[in-house]
């Protein structure tokens, strides 16, 4: 029996482990699938990490190292090259590695920190052949930044998420010609700074309301046909155009990796793809917590670290015997706000609620409503789906509430 087992040694897992250790939990084990800690940060060699947490601009590997050092200094056990296969509702974990074969670990508390994976080609139903040269942007990033292989020379990128934008710059710097970034939406899902420094700096066109309708080539990609889409996202036949290329990168969204959570019986949100959690990041299963991109996809790792600290601290209190469930308040949204994390409140305290909006809005008010009464209102100049927002609830706003509703009011 271990006190706390953390599934995943990326930024969420490391930060959660360090927080729980500092709250007095000595018996912690991190289970990591890869041969090293750090998760996806290891391949994110660009800078821009850590401005919130460390007030300096770090690259991914540097940010990861700051937490690896903490894990080492705090003497937290890690098992690398270890794949977790199953978690059951009694918090019995089944895992495997080459040294121990198949083994089980029972935990008093579990923190899920498995991160997310990229939406693949199969999820998009793009017509055409199935040649080599179609990669998710993250796969191309791993080839280039970890293994040192160049995935292609003439590139089209579908989707303008941050990884796609970062790879447009990366491939260009290494000598590839990135011909276009196509985005089906009327706006980019990536950060404004990445459009500027990854596309505009290199004259790479961002084609909004465009998608790839066909992939050409037998053995290797020989080109793609792109087209403009109408308001209901259907390709407009007359706008079809062929672009010659040998590589298509897909940056079309990230999906929290929750197969293990489902096996453990954790209730998932249809909107986030991650667990439904309370303010402590505890899931519907007693003693199982979730944080980071497995809970909901973040745009900044700094917020992942913050969230993981909440989960780590809460798991520590749980192990020490603290029980919540003093109150039960549901946090709901109006559709313009897509989701909140947490989705439920089980203890009366001040808390930051994170949320994402469904479209780009300007000059809005975020209202928190208890029945007819607006208990909190916050002005925002601009909100966008690609940028996670937050609002801080005071504990007294939870008085006499069964439901608090977050609404976006256009002014």
């Amino acid at each position, binding site marked *: 029996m271990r006190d706390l087992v953390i599934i995943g040694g990326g930024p969420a897992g490391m930060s959660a482990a360090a927080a729980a250790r500092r709250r007095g939990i000595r018996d912690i084990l991190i289970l990591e699938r890869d041969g090293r800690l750090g998760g996806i940060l290891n391949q994110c*060699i660009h*800078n821009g990490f850590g*401005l919130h947490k460390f007030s300096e601009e770090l690259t*991914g590997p540097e940010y990861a190292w700051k937490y690896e050092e903490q894990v080492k200094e705090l003497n937290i056990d890690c098992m690398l090259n270890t794949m977790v296969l199953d978690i059951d509702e009694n918090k019995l974990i089944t895992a495997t590695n080459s040294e121990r074969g198949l083994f089980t670990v029972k935990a008093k508390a579990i923190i899920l920190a498995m991160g997310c994976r990229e939406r693949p080609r199969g999820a998009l139903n793009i017509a055409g052949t199935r040649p080599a040269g179609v990669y998710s942007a993250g796969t191309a990033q791993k080839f280039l*930044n970890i293994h*040192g292989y160049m995935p292609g020379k003439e590139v089209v990128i579908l989707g303008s998420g941050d990884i796609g934008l970062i790879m447009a710059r990366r491939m260009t710097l290494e000598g590839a010609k990135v011909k276009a970034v196509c985005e089906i939406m009327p706006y980019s899902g990536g950060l404004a*700074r990445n459009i500027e420094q990854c596309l505009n700096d290199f004259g790479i066109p961002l084609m909004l309301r465009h998608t790839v309708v066909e992939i050409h080539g037998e053995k290797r990609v020989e080109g793609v046909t792109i087209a403009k889409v109408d308001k209901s996202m259907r390709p407009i036949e007359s706008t079809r155009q062929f672009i010659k290329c040998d590589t298509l990168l897909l940056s079309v969204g990230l999906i929290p990796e929750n197969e293990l959570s489902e096996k453990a019986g954790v209730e998932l949100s249809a909107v986030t793809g991650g667990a439904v959690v309370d303010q402590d990041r505890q899931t519907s299963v007693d003693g199982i917590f979730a944080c980071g991109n497995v809970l909901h996809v973040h745009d*900044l790792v700094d917020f992942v670290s913050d969230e993981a600290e909440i989960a780590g601290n809460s798991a520590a209190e749980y192990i020490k015997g603290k029980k919540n469930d003093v109150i039960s308040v549901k946090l709901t949204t109006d559709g313009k706000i897509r989701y909140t994390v947490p989705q439920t409140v089980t203890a009366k305290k001040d808390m930051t609620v994170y949320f994402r909006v469904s479209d780009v809005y300007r000059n809005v008010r975020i209202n928190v409503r208890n029945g007819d009464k607006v208990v909190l209102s916050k002005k925002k100049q601009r909100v966008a789906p690609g940028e996670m927002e937050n609002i801080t609830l005071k504990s007294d706003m939870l008085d006499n509430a069964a439901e608090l509703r977050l609404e976006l009011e256009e002014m």
Partner: protein
Amino acid sequence: MERELTCIVCPMGCRITVKMRNGKVEGVSGNTCPRGERYAIDECTDPKRTLTTTMRCENGEVIPVKTDRAIPKDKMFECMKIINSSVVSPPVLIGDVIIENVFGANIVATKNVMQKEK
């Protein structure tokens, strides 16, 4: 003349307007912090970027590196050439200078490579 910029200093991505006359900055607006103002002035007079890339190790692996300060934007490809024609021999620690004084910056390691891995 006015120039519209998107600030790249932090993820907020402020829209900044810069008033220019005869190649000199007369006013900056739209920024929320002093770093934004600094960026806007630099961007209109002497644009710079921090470069992050990888470099070959002797053992065939790659190691991530960066310029320890921003270099002139139009020197990025020349800087890439210099980095890509160099080879580093481990062990290397984060922050170790691998190449000195490239367009006013040092090329430093951003990952630890403790020994020669195979």
